[in-house]
């Protein structure tokens, strides 16, 4: 997988760890959460979930529902991306707020605000609709940020000559979007869409199986099927569910993503032919088909020509941008003042809500953060312990890679959240089984990112460096120290950033479990959030969610961003 196409916004601006835009972004997040918690006060105390059928013949319908949710969230993500990315890329003033906001939003552990979104929505909407919308919102937030970053980044890196050419040949906004911006960003958009879908499955499963206390927010779908199967201890249903999931992922990969990648190859900017271009049997099949040719020459091309002609007539390129009039500028100030005033008021309200929390509980939250941090680190270390040796082994042995890569990809495609119930079923009986299960669940959410990145890093080590190391007769340890570790370091960091985010996320589901009707919980911030959700303690829910978000943002800025820029500057192998 070519990881260089991924975007990690946390490393965008480098230099200073914080800017005033960050402060604004954090305030904005506080206000959003406060509004959710405020709404949640009216949430029904008891919510009954749907009945989930364990018949295998129910699976196609459940699969369709799950894929539908993913698709809805993905379309929403694309729309958001186009608008937000463009706005940030072309408006220098807006960019100063929009980009830090995006950066803070993307480092927020998504599951941490699932309870707030669910409760808030269930207060204003019918229960099943609330759960549907919440799941789509949740998947949206897991898919959208990297897409938006990718789009913003490609818009801001369009070479100057292309922009000048499109100016001098008078391409209006529409023609520029169609002929320059979209093609230029296409490869990066396709790659990031694939990543987004992979991440989306994880959260879809989590949203489908969310139950706390007497509130059952489950949705009919693949995730709920697996959850119910594990609850019922129905092994054959578990196997059917996992089969349906893997099959769906494989089918999407073969029929959607691979063809898209093969198609998008023509959008690369490099002026040389690709030595091994991405291939897809399905793409080859349809691109040669008569139906496709007929569609193109009789439908798509004429339609696109008509649309272009209309757009060119209707919106001719303006020679000079219009300067805003006095009243427009005045209006801008009024809007700004109203927004800032509203923000200030809501922040004050949020603070008022949280001051009611006793000091002792704040102490608990601090300890909880540390406990969860410990689990996150432990799971990261465990993940590194097996992914580094295996990843380097796979990455440096093309033959092994050819066999193991597909297997690893299928295994990784099974979202860890889908397996939570199954894992718990086995481990709960062991001594301190809950603690071990929690760490294992967090590990399952983190390891694949690391493994893929390490494989990519190891396979990118140039052959001549490997030969040199051999000729110099370096010992195994020296070879690791001088060649392998530095070479995979940037990839390792990229993987670890995503992995630690995944582990924080998983803590919410992993630290608080209902098993056989009784509540099992660990000390940890994730467990506090789940507990507050179950008890309907909204001030605590707000405070603990905020605490987790702030902790993660801080760690990102103070640790990961530094390591990332170190990796980029020192250990990136160019050319």
């Amino acid at each position, binding site marked *: 997988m070519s990881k260089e196409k991924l975007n990690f916004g946390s490393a965008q601006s480098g230099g200073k760890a914080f800017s005033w835009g960050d402060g604004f972004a954090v305030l904005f997040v506080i206000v959003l959460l406060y509004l959710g918690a405020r709404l949640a006060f009216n949430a029904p105390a008891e919510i009954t979930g749907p009945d989930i059928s364990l018949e295998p013949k129910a699976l196609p319908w459940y699969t369709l529902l799950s894929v539908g949710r993913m698709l809805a969230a993905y379309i929403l993500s694309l729309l958001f991306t186009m608008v937000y990315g463009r706005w940030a890329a072309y408006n220098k003033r807006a960019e100063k707020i929009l980009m830090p906001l995006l950066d803070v939003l993307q480092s927020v552990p998504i599951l941490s605000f699932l309870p707030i979104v669910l409760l808030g929505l269930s207060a204003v909407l019918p229960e099943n609709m609330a759960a549907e919308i919440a799941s789509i919102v949740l998947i949206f937030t897991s898919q959208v940020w990297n897409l938006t970053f990718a789009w913003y980044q490609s818009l801001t890196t369009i*070479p100057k*000559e*292309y922009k*000048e*050419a499109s*100016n*001098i*040949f*008078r*391409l*209006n906004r529409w*023609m520029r979007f169609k*002929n*320059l911006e979209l*093609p230029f960003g*296409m490869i990066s958009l396709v790659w990031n869409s694939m990543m987004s879908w992979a991440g989306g499955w994880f959260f879809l499963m989590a949203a489908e199986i969310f139950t706390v206390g007497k509130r059952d927010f489950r949705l009919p779908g693949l995730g709920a099927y697996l959850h119910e199967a594990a609850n019922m201890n129905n092994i054959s249903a578990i196997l059917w569910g996992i089969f349906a999931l893997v099959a769906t992922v494989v089918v999407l990969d073969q029929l959607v993503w691979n063809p898209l990648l093969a198609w998008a190859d*023509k*959008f*690369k*900017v*490099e*002026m*040389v*032919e690709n030595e091994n271009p991405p291939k897809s049997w399905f793409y080859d099949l349809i691109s040669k088909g008569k139906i496709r040719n007929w569609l193109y020459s009789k439908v798509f091309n004429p339609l696109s*020509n008509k649309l*272009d*002609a209309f757009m*060119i*007539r209707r919106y001719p*390129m*303006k*020679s*000079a941008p219009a300067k805003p009039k006095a009243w427009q500028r005045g209006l801008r100030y009024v809007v700004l003042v109203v927004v800032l005033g509203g923000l200030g008021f809501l922040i004050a309200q949020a603070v008022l809500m949280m001051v009611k929390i006793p000091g002792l509980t704040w102490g608990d939250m601090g300890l909880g953060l540390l406990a969860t941090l410990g689990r996150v680190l432990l799971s990261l270390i465990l993940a590194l312990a097996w992914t580094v040796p295996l990843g380097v082994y796979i990455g440096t042995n093309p033959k092994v890679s050819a066999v193991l890569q597909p297997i690893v990809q299928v295994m990784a495609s099974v979202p860890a959240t889908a397996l939570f119930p199954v894992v718990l079923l086995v481990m709960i009986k062991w001594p301190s089984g809950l603690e071990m299960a929690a760490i294992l669940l967090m590990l399952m959410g983190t390891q694949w990112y690391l493994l893929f990145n390490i494989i990519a890093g190891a396979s990118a080590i140039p052959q001549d460096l490997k030969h040199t190391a051999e000729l110099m007769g370096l010992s195994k340890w020296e070879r690791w120290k001088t060649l392998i570790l530095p070479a995979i370091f940037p990839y390792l960091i990229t993987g670890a950033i995503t992995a630690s985010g995944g582990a924080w996320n998983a803590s919410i589901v992993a630290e608080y479990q209902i098993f056989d009707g009784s509540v099992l919980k660990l000390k940890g911030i994730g467990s506090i959030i789940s507990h507050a959700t179950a008890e309907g303690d909204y001030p605590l829910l707000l405070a603990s969610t905020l605490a987790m978000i702030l902790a993660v943002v801080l760690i990102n800025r103070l640790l990961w961003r530094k390591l990332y820029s170190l990796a980029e500057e*020192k250990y990136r192998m160019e050319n």
Partner: protein
Amino acid sequence: MNDALLKLENVYMEYGSGARRFTAVENINLDLKSGEFAALLGPSGCGKSTLLRIVTGLQEASRGRVYYRGEPLVGVNPHAAIVFQSFALFPWLSVLENVSLALKTKGVQEPERSQKAIDLLDRVGLDGFESAYPRELSGGMRQKVGFARAMAVEPELLCLDEPFSALDVLSAESLRGELLELWVGGKIPTKAILMVSHNIEEAVLLADRVIIMDKDPGRVIADLPIDLAHPRQRKSPEFQAIVDMVYGLLAGQTRSEVEEFGVAPGEPGITRKLPSLPMSDLAGMLEHLSELPEGKADIYKLEEELATTTDHLLLLTETAELLGYASIAKGDIAITPLGQAYADASILARKEIFASRARRLPLIKWLLQMLQNAENQQLKRNVVKTALSLEFPDETAERQIDTLINWGRYGEIFEYDDKTETITLENQRYNS
């Protein structure tokens, strides 16, 4: 014909504000008449590309007026087209689609659009390649598409931004011939051509008029008509005389040391930039000069003898002059006794000669003084950059530091640690 197509009056291009205000081009007055083919020549960084962007309306001048056919130019000039150095063809569009796109935005409908695009491609000799993608073509063919696309909009003013400099020697030469054929033969509806070039021979070969610019700040220093009839012979004495004269104008004259050196940053007056040139290149030129009779050469001849480009050659002569290795007058360069000594010296002795000369340059003197006063005789790169950014725009300041470090390392004047980004005064023991 005396209808001025284009007129520039007191045009300035400035960046930044306050103490950090930098001038890219200064007080440009220029007019271009119908039927003229003018070339803009000058060293890199003289603002010739900026001027081209002002003329086409891609950039707005910060001061002064630009008229097109007597009307003030607002926004992108609808009567101009550009052929870009890097071609700027959309890689995802086929050759035909690239050309059609320019026609489409003009409102030309199918089927005339494709017909016209194919016609244009035929005219530049690309028939048969309509469905190819740019990446399948050679550089020369790509630029032909660039020309076809520019001509598709039937521009009155055709702007060429170093159109041949990314091409190999042979395709550049044949494409120049083809352009001239189209232009002189009146086969294109274009009224005037403005070409930015960094190649003196190319400009003299093609243009009726050569406008010469100099840098720091960018300004026009000469405007020469070229009256030779086409086709011009590169080897003819008249042709070579003009090339020689242009080199004379561009390479300047060796002046007194005070004028050559400029002043240190922070002092009143102009701080002269160090030419960004690796020292090994310079040794090559000096060795070549030292072997010539009397150690003298026509600068324009050196371009071919050293197999280099005008830009690079001008940088070489400027550096040699600055370090006192050579003197320049009227387009001739002569090696000095110091330069001769340098050319004959061993590698280590060369470093010493260089160091003793370089220490006298105001910019290096200034940095040395700062280092001596600094704690541990060390300075962070950032500190130097901040000090320099009062004199130069950010990018230039970065490049100046790179050159300072490169020169300092070569002359063993100071060290630089890339990890910690610190410049350290070289221990005196090494030098004595």
